[in-house]
């Protein structure tokens, strides 16, 4: 089977190590060089196997001082699910008050990852 080597930049921390990742003919991860730490090796493996991303976005708030609460997935989710995740998140509404860290969507798309509020939104005093 023919091996393949690709180059990528690790984005785990600001150093941005230049990684060389080797995969087999089926695209399966074999090895990585160029990383200064273990996180880079994990990142490289994930990137070629099942790339993951944290998804930051907003959820609509009802009766709050702000119309939206900023949210994110607690952990990275598979990159290929990002748009589907957005479709689900779009359908949600939350009533104020919202607390930072509050779980707003449990187990997004069966990934086991929750969507949490990343800020506090108080109730709108005017309403």
């Amino acid at each position, binding site marked *: 089977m023919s091996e393949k080597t690709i180059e990528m930049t690790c984005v785990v921390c600001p150093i941005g190590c230049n990684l060389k990742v080797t995969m087999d003919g089926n695209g399966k991860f074999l090895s990585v060089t160029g990383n200064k730490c273990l996180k880079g090796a994990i990142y490289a493996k994930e990137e070629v196997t099942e790339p993951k991303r944290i998804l930051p976005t907003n959820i609509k708030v009802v009766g709050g001082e702000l*119309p939206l609460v900023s949210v*994110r997935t607690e952990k990275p989710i598979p990159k290929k699910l990002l748009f589907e995740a957005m479709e689900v998140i779009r359908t949600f509404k939350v009533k104020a008050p919202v607390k930072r860290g509050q779980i707003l969507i449990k187990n997004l798309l069966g990934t086991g990852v929750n969507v949490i509020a990343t800020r506090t939104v108080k109730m709108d005093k005017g309403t």
Partner: protein
Amino acid sequence: MKRLEYDVVILGGGAAGMGAIRGALSQNASVLLVEREASTGGVLNQCIHNGFGVRVFKKELTGPEYHEMYLEKLKGFDAMYEATVLDIDSESRLLKVISASGIYKIRYGALVLATGARERPFEALRVPGSRPSGIFTAGLAQHFVNLENRLPGRKAIVIGSGDIGLIMARRLTLEGVEVEGVYEIMPYQGGLTRNVVQCLKDFNIPLHLSTSVVKVHGKERLEGVTVAKFIDGNPVSGTERFIGCDTLIASVGLIPENDLVDKEIEISSSGGAVVDDLMRTSVDNIFAAGNNVCIHDLVDFVTVEGEGAGQNAARVAKKEKMPKRVGIFKKGKGIRVISIHYTTATIPFKMYVRVDHPMDMAILRINDTNLKTVLNAKPSEMIEFTLDPTKYNLKGEIELSAVEAKR
């Protein structure tokens, strides 16, 4: 006219200002924050993406989380919100501030300038054509989307590959706006590599280097732009291409905000407040930290700068004798920006620099000594290092340079 007096007055409650509050409080100074918005946080409130706090909280957080978590550390300061400084009289150490409660004259023992930066507006580029609606700076578009719950348009192009533009390319794409591409006039990217990967490559948004806009079309609302290849800042005739779009997001540079003090303190050629390793400006009781010193990439660095500025401001306010400047930094070959211009050579301090062009391998040198080697050095990625006066001679003129080498 109401009169107030504080040891340390901090202008701006964004990341740097909050850091300064913490620093000043740690010295038991009386602290007043003057903030023009209704709350602290500055741009952190609209930066809902992750990438904040890796150093300060050892976690990767979003802007709002960073803001709230840091705010929890701050107790015992006074604040004026929706208040704007009209005038600074550095000789009398007086600020004139206006708010809905009237005019205030505030005397400070020491002042910390944490006024951040503004975005360069698209209009400043003098691009020919019409002047329709639909043109936004990336930060303004971010404000509309994340805080006002409004989309700027339906089909966008991004001019400039600065970080805010890259972030907005992703943000808009995730909300169903078509982002046709990102256009960068230089032959290299303007923002962090992690953003090029996670905002553009992830979404197949093309990054066109050495390309920028040469004409704007549309009478009332934007209808499109003409782009062309650029060499050395000049468009290449014959390479023009029309792109239909209704939204232009401009991410073409950040400018330090020092308009209140540009007659009072030394300002660098790039518009930043000139400071020494104590974060002290050319006036002994005025300190500065954050984007109004030099444009930063990571909020964690800004927080550290702010804490230092706040601490030292408090020491000055309490009439502590502060060390004098003994060394002056000069930008040598290969360096575009340095964050600190003078040193007291008393304690180790952090310096941030940017190289002036991408280098495969950059060797940072302090005078004739090699300091640090950086792989993949780019102007868009700030380089951090610590200068220890016991390890390097920091007296007199000190040249910082970056020499290119091949691996």
